């Protein structure tokens, strides 16, 4: 018997997220950190849709995260200053790119899939890095700002009020997470898990495995590009480091750290990772060594993640 009922657990998670801006400062955090946790959690949960629930190892998700971010930033800077429009463009760009690359990779498995996704991810890094007249190159794309959102009857000032931004991000997060939960509970989601558990058997049952993996890949990249849009909006800035392979690694480690087989695992992983990163990088210049050590320690001693460990202790 689990200690906490699933429904109570969900309620606790949402309660914590909704009230976060009020207690975060009290325990030494700041609202922006909470927003960042939500954004990275969304990215890591999106990755986990593919990694944990379909069993496909992608190491290139930063590409679609970055495409979402660049799409958003470039729309506001060059086309039209509207936050919703910019997000729409970012999401479409990221998802379409993933949809196009999908057919090239869905037949590959395991390490091979991982290698090819890393390599394809770097394509977008190079474009962002080299095409400096448009993307700002290594310096990134700055000198633009997220715009207040006009609902007609009211306007949400996400620029000056960081709590408003937090709640906007939370709303998007809730929508996306709800959609993912819905998909995973649907027959489609169950099929994905069947593929994860035994691909050959799924194939013999007549499931078009490659097509399902392609769909899972595109859905996963869709949500990760949503996270990318929010990421660009949060800092009013995006640079090629958002696309680089180490960012993909961060998403994976968040999912693993929290627990790949748990729905909320990546959220826990993102929170632990970002709080630690925030703390370490303000105390030492050698934060890279610590992040690296962190990776090694998690793999060696914590491969099931926080929630995986709790689950096992409860014997379920």
């Amino acid at each position: 018997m689990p200690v906490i009922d699933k429904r109570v657990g969900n309620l606790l998670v949402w309660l914590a997220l909704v009230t976060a801006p009020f207690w975060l400062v009290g325990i030494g955090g700041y609202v922006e950190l909470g927003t960042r946790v939500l954004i990275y959690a969304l990215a890591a949960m999106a990755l986990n849709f593919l990694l944990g629930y379909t069993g496909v190892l992608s190491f290139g998700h930063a590409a679609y995260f970055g495409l979402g971010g660049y799409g958003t930033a470039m729309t506001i800077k060059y086309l039209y200053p509207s936050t919703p429009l910019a997000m729409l463009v970012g999401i479409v760009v990221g998802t379409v790119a993933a949809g196009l690359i999908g057919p090239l990779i869905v037949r590959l498995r395991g390490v091979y899939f991982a290698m090819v996704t890393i390599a394809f991810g770097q394509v977008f890094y190079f474009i962002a890095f080299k095409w400096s007249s448009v993307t700002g190159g290594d310096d990134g794309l700055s000198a633009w700002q997220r715009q207040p959102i006009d609902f007609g009857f009211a306007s949400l000032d996400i620029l000056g009020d960081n709590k408003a931004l937090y709640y906007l991000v939370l709303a998007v997060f809730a929508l996306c997470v709800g959609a993912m939960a819905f998909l995973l509970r649907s027959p489609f989601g169950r099929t994905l898990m069947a593929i994860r558990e035994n691909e050959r058997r799924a194939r013999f049952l007549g499931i078009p495995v490659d097509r399902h993996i392609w769909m899972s890949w595109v859905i996963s990249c869709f949500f990760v590009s949503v996270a990318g849009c929010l990421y660009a909006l949060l800092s009013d800035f995006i640079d090629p480091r958002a696309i680089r392979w180490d960012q993909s690694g961060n998403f994976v480690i968040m999912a693993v750290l929290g627990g790949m087989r748990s729905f909320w695992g990546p959220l826990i992983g993102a929170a632990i990772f970002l709080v630690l990163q925030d703390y370490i990088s303000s105390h030492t210049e050698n934060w890279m060594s610590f992040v690296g050590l962190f990776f090694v320690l998690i793999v060696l001693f914590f491969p099931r993640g926080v929630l995986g460990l709790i689950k096992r202790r409860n014997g379920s």
Partner: protein
Amino acid sequence: MTTLLLFNIVNGLIIGAFYALMALGLSLILNLSGVINFAHGGFLAIGGYLAYTLIPYVGFWGALLISPFLVAFIGVAIERVLIRRLYGRDPLYSLLLTFGLAFMIEDGTRFIWGAQSLPYQIPGALAAPLSTSLFFLTGYRIFMMALVAAAVIGLFVILNRTRLGLRIRAGTFDLETVSVLGVNVRVLRNLNFGLGIYLAGLAGVLAAGMLGLQPTIGDSLIMPSFISIIVGGLGSLPGTLAGGLLIGAASGITTVFFPSASEAVIYVIMAAVLIVRPRGLLGEEGRF
């Protein structure tokens, strides 16, 4: 124009030889142990830096001889302590571990040797151009090509003519059977890892003279090495070699006509190969 084209093809082949040297090491480890060694670029950097430190004491030739062995030794130690524990588990974990190692090695080299690019002395005899019309053919470039060729030939001699090589090749096909036949698979994988890292170290000593020595020296080489393996075909070392040279030459030729696309062409080739022949040029059917 012809000279320019020739220059860029030669240049591309030299870079391609580096890709191949690195990719062969990666491939060896991947084939036998199923581990993608993300820290390979880090080992390359260590090779370059150790050579830099050794040159004042033993000269360039001594460093060229000693440094790769030291790197291989570090690799063997890391395999024993860390990577060995992950064999047989989801490849996700070995990827994450070598990811972390890559971070630690990059930061470690920065901590020890500093972030600035270090001056790297190559022997004067090698630095001079061989002829005025073919000005780009400095002795160092020819020397690098010759050395990479020697290393590759050496590797294939080891694989095809020695007992260790026989076991590595057999283990690539069926490790379990090799183990049942009485080969100590732990030692085999350990030595194989060392061999792969030796190649990275050697590439590091050579590349430092051409690319300049800095902690991120491996970064520009690791991705093309991955692509060499993908293009050449997983599981095939000759394929990896061909893949490296092919993308090197292709990027050299592209430099002449569209300089800004010289990186992109590598990825275009990869995409084309994946569409036409997903297992890679010389890869075996159904291996992955």
